[in-house]
């Protein structure tokens, strides 16, 4: 019974938290830029407002256009459910490992990109094309990160990796550092943050993700935006859980440890979100054709992380 409750809490925690984290990033950025900024709960209001508006669908759109927001959102949500946040003791955890997690995010991307192309406008195709360019390098990079983590810890399942890191049998590995760097680069790219994409731009030629969802409105847009927020929170949770898992509740933990785990999770999420805001403020967006170097670099870092394990005798 208690397991079920934990699982339900896990299912709704990230989704409920995601707009707040996004609002927090916006707030910190605004402060850094010398603005007052909107309240961190503004994204909740935005989503609610969008839900109230009628959805406008283009004449040329097919059923895929209307289905895509729901599929995208639920695929990202499903991925978020599978990442340990405050505890590793999850009933559903064995359903997917990190490889499947990467692929689930791929499902969301597949549908969003198709939806972008569905209406038949130039911007939609532009966004889809660029998004797939980014993904075709970011996804292998993330798989290489998984590869090196699985070599260190002997598992591809997040909960097992966390248990291994917490057991103290891994020191400060060079490979872990490289993997972290690669994962951060992937996270930046996958979430469409600066320097890859600018989440707040509406200048046509510089946008990637926004270009794909340009035709959406009303509840469809709300779902697409929510999916983006959940994805950001998911990546923050993943980085926090894999590379700084301290405080997370292990199997067999009591209520106090659960509460502690929750507190630590929230602290980590907001700390990472603030770090993201600082990073974004200090850096400029790069040209589209530099993406390949950036993400190819992430892929090579992942590869290097794997190869380096041979030196440190972890294999």
């Amino acid at each position, binding site marked *: 019974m208690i397991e079920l409750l934990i699982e339900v809490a896990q299912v709704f925690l990230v989704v409920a938290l995601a707009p707040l984290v996004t609002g927090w990033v916006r707030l910190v950025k605004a402060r850094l830029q010398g603005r007052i900024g909107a309240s961190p709960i503004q994204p909740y209001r935005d989503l609610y407002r969008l839900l109230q508006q009628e959805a406008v669908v283009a004449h040329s759109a*097919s059923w895929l256009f209307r289905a895509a927001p729901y599929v995208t959102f639920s695929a990202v949500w499903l991925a978020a459910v599978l990442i340990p946040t405050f505890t590793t003791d999850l009933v559903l955890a064995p359903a997917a490992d990190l490889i499947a997690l990467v*692929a689930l995010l791929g499902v969301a991307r*597949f549908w969003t990109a198709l939806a972008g192309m569905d209406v038949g406008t130039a911007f939609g195709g532009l966004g889809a*094309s660029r998004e797939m360019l980014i993904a075709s390098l970011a996804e292998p990079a993330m798989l290489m990160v998984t590869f090196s983590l699985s070599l260190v810890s002997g598992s591809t399942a997040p909960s097992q990796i966390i248990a291994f890191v917490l057991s103290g049998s891994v020191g400060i590995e060079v490979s872990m550092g490289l993997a972290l760097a690669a994962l951060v680069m992937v996270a930046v790219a996958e979430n469409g943050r600066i320097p890859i994409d600018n989440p707040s731009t509406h200048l046509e030629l510089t946008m990637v993700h926004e270009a794909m969802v340009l035709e959406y409105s009303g509840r469809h847009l709300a779902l697409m935006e929510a999916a983006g927020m959940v994805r950001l929170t998911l990546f923050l949770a993943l980085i926090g859980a894999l590379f700084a898992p301290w405080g997370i509740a292990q199997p067999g933990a009591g209520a106090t440890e659960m509460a502690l785990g929750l507190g630590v999770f929230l602290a980590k999420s907001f700390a990472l979100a603030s770090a993201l805001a600082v990073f974004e403020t200090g850096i400029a967006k790069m040209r589209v054709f530099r993406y390949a170097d950036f993400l190819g670099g992430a892929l090579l870092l992942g590869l290097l992380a794997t190869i380096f394990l*041979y030196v440190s005798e972890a294999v």
Partner: protein
Amino acid sequence: MLIAASLAALVLLAVVGVVAGGREITHRLVHAGCAVASIALLIGGLTHLGAGPGGSPAIVLPLGLPWMAAHFRLDNLSALFMVVVDLAAAAASIYGIGYCRHLPQVRRVTPFFPLFLFGMNAVLLADDAFMFLVSWEFMSLASWLMVLSDHKSAENRHAAVIYLVMAAFGTFCLLTSFGLMAGAGGAYTFAAMRQAELAAVPAFLVVLMAVLGAGSKAGLVPLHVWLPLAHPAAPSHVSALMSGVMTKVALYGLIRILFDLHGEVPWEWGAALMVIGGVSAVLGVLYALFQDDLKRLLAYSTVENVGVAVIGLGLGIAFKDAGEPALAALALVGGLYHIVNHSIFKTLLFLAAGAVISATGERRLSGLGGLLNRMPWTGTAALIGAAAISALPPLNGFVSEWLILQALFKGPGLPHWAMKFGVPVVGAMLALAGALAATCFVRAYGIVFLGRPRSLAAAQADLHPTPASMRWTMAVLALLCILLGALPVTVTDALSAVVQPMTGMHFAVSADLGWPWLSPVSSTRGSYSGTMLVMVGTALFAIAVVLAHGLGTRRVRRADAWDCGHREDIPETQYTGQSFSQPLRRVFGGSVFLARETVEMPEPGERSPARLSVRMIDPVWVGLYDPIVRAINFIADRVNRMQFLTVRGYLLMMFSTLVFMLLVVAWRQQP
């Protein structure tokens, strides 16, 4: 018995096909007959797989040359491939019932279609080298004739010539391989070959020739050049079989030789196969990304998927040689799973392409678009196929890729340094190929089925409704993509039984956690459950729908596309296939394909349009085949002179040959 009767029926149908003539009803009857025979063979294969391990006793038939009897045998491996072949064959045949009506050259297809099916099944059943090669040639020639069925187009004739050369090359290699295994005694049955002890050099040559022979048929880089030419040239249901199934029969030949007849393949070959597979996967999908011809795109994607399966096979060899039968079994199960999956979704996609082509008469991406609204059945089935081939959960393509990746992740445990360093690189290649495949099929699907139609033919596609037989076949195949992804444990259990004799150990991928969890290696290693993902995903989807509709309004209004306020009605402003792949062409094209973009801008004031032209070079063709062709031409020129020698000259040649042979004999007789 059922199997024998079905095979006989196929031959009979071929005869009917020859005499069929111009009457449409006979063509449909032949296809229907093929469907019945394939379903019978499918049932035969399935019942054998269900019966558990162990093969049927060999059947000896007095066929062929008088002193050589024909041996047939059905074991688990051939039964699995029979299921693969005949599932797709049944689909293609049923599809053909409706499809052959639209086919102008149907008279040149119908007689060979049953023969093609017969050849593929006979290869799987053959238990001696002679029958194997004869059936192999049946398969090659029947498909070659169908490639040539539309012989009026010069492009198809070119494709047929290259196909014929490559098929002859492949058969020659396989013949050498079998000949070396049979040895001087001429023991041509598979049973005798299993017993044969080979010296180091012949053993090496056997594997090399098997890889070349089967690899050329399967389309491994650099022997893939014929495939993207020949597969699209045939009618779509034949293309589906050639791409989806005939490549698998080639892989069957490879597996049969490497894991059964030869048995002890050293790990270096595993490494070589992994590299070949990795290169095929990446190059295949890159080629596919830049194609404008829908069927050629699919054919190139076959090169990619064969590469992925071969990575699994190579890894299996390496693990087996290193004394890790459980991991070898995992890699092989992954590879075989991918073979099964690819036969299903590639058949589905080719059939969908056939439906598109027969409705619009257009196979260029740049002439299609907006078909999901006009062909909802085909569009939906193709969407499932495209998602499956992009390795997206919870569909089947993901499961096999997941298994192969899991096996790869154990690769650094191998004792050889080459493998320790090679495995991560191959892993990166596999991951890259997977991600690029998703890009490739977003592009293909988005351009063909979404957006606005780019030509009048595409806009009027709904005037030519797809026949029911075609629609239902695609629907069933799409359903199979979902089922094989949602119930992976059922498939892996069956595959474990097939793999068992090859690795000498029973290994169930789901042993640790039980149904419905896949947990290779151990339960803490990482696990996957397509079943759970489907269930939870559906629940979350339902919650999302209820939440969005419950909290907000359900109103929908149809309007013109917004497009940032750029109101226009010209479909040409959409992204095309070329523009979609342009960023990737910039990234990969320059170094891999030596792509050069040239822009011709008109002078200021002129009204002529600016032109962007792209030139791409196939590195394999330029680097490997052109030199060979030049060398052959050069030698042919030289040999040509020999036609004009004097009698004494000819006598001298014969004499020197004789002396040379005698010298060889004398040398061989030295102790």
